[in-house]
């Protein structure tokens, strides 16, 4: 386990590594990237050197199965470990969605097609989360909440256009439509 904290007030992005760390958040670099990749990355190195990242905890050797999330459901995992696993899951999904967003180019039809692909991907993630025996109830809830949040963000631009207005004296349209229908 190698827990690193974003010490800045901004979101740290490592585009080449598809890694984003929210302000003040902690991430398990072993989970997110793997020990050797994290240690060899110049971006990570510079972030530590500049003080943007600080090590909270660094175990001597990375556990072999951390990336797969092999913890038993409901037991054995402390809060820091759970948080790190969730953060790693979020980062991985963010990276994936970021790539999808970057690919959303071309005409509107292509963009909307891309949006559907992204939604399918989120649905697939949901199924995986629900089927993953290694996750505790709390982790499942947290991951599903995050997936929902991501989906809302993704579709917001398409579903929330416009300012709604409901006139006080509504109902006239229906009455006039009746009148118009009767004329026919």
């Amino acid at each position, binding site marked *: 386990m190698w827990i690193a904290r974003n010490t800045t007030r901004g*979101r740290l*992005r490592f585009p080449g590594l598809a890694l984003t760390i929210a302000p003040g958040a902690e991430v398990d670099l072993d989970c997110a990237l793997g020990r050797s990749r994290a240690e060899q990355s110049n971006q990570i190195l510079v972030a530590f050197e500049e003080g943007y990242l600080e090590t909270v905890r660094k175990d001597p050797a990375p556990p072999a199965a951390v990336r797969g999330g092999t913890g038993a459901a409901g037991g054995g995992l402390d809060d820091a470990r759970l948080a790190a696993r969730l953060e790693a899951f979020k980062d991985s999904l963010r990276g994936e969605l970021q790539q999808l*967003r*970057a690919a*959303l*180019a*071309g*005409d*509107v039809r292509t*963009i*909307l097609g891309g949006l559907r692909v992204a939604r399918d991907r989120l649905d697939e993630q949901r199924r995986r989360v629900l089927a993953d025996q290694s996750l505790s109830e709390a982790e499942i809830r947290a991951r599903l909440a995050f997936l929902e949040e991501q989906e809302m*963000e993704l579709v*917001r*631009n*398409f*579903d*929330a*256009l*416009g*300012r*709604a*207005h*409901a*006139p006080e004296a*509504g*109902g*006239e*349209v*229906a009455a*006039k*439509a*009746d*009148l*118009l*229908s009767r*004329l*026919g």
Partner: protein
Amino acid sequence: MAKAIDIGTSFIVAAELQDGREVFRSERNAFFCMDRDELAQDMLDDAGARYLVRGEQLFVVGEDALKFATITGDQRAYRRPMARGILNPGEEQAISMLETLVEGLLGPAARPGEVCAATLPAAPCDAEGDITFHRIVIERCLRRLGYEPHPIHEALAVIYSENPQVESGGQSVPFTGIGLSFGAGMTNAALAWRAKSLFETAVARGGDWIDERVALARATTRSKVCAIKERRLDLERIDPRDGMQLALEIYHEELIEYAARRLAEALHHTQASVEEALEVCVAGGTAMVPGFLPRLERALGRVHLPLQIRGVRLARDPLRAAAAGALVAAVSHEKRRPAGRAEGASAAAPAAPGVTSSPGGTNGGASGTPPASLPPGAARERPRKAPVG
């Protein structure tokens, strides 16, 4: 249930019924283009702005586009999918941006084939302009969202919304009068008898034309003129020492005179004739300026219309009247559809008594109805249902 959309040069307004009451959603028909970078994208996310990413560019759409144009001062990046009432021929992103806005406002059809009435302008009588391309783009966009498109002329929609009436043979005849829609890009007009469109026309001048002329006359920007027009102008209280107010008054007067003159000319060229005095219902943002209506009434009195006018009134909600009227048509059309009415008949409008095809002279077509006229005296007869389909 059916929906409706009024696609104007400045604003797009969607309408639907929720629990029997009409609900509107409106959005500025505009977008703002900026280079894509992470900072900009984060900023837009934080601001909750609606945007699209296309390649290396970000397109902020709707009201937020105007905000960004104001904040950055970059007026060239502020673009509009439509100009003079139809798709902007000089804007390469016009179709995709308009589709995005329409989709964002309407959403997909609740079920395949849900009726969606869309307002369309008439072909302008004073300028080159073909609405066929515009109409087909809108229809395709609606079909792609799962709707059955139902085009309706913008000014006829105003008549459906405001329901002007006349007394004929001791009976009240609904949806009978003149509808005028003073929009940003165009001014549309329609004459209807018992919901049947008898005549439709348009002139390629509207609020944008006023902004353009005043900006030229006063050597300023159109956005500044527009802001003053919308916030401070009162045509009844013009300060003659204020050059901007004076210019705005002159060009409002010019637009009103021009529209009234063109309407009179077009009506003289048709055979449409109604003996009862008609009410004129006026909608559109340009007509909302205080003092606009009395000037219009005086102008209509001066141009010798071949019809009697018994009053001019502003729509209850001038910005949403066309959308509301389109929704009336859509709901009515959907109600009548199961009864086996012929598809492609008039825009929810039954035929008027004694209506015959006119030899020409109208610019009808937006509603899919053939140009028609009412022979003199026919209006005196008790209205009866004409065969449909």
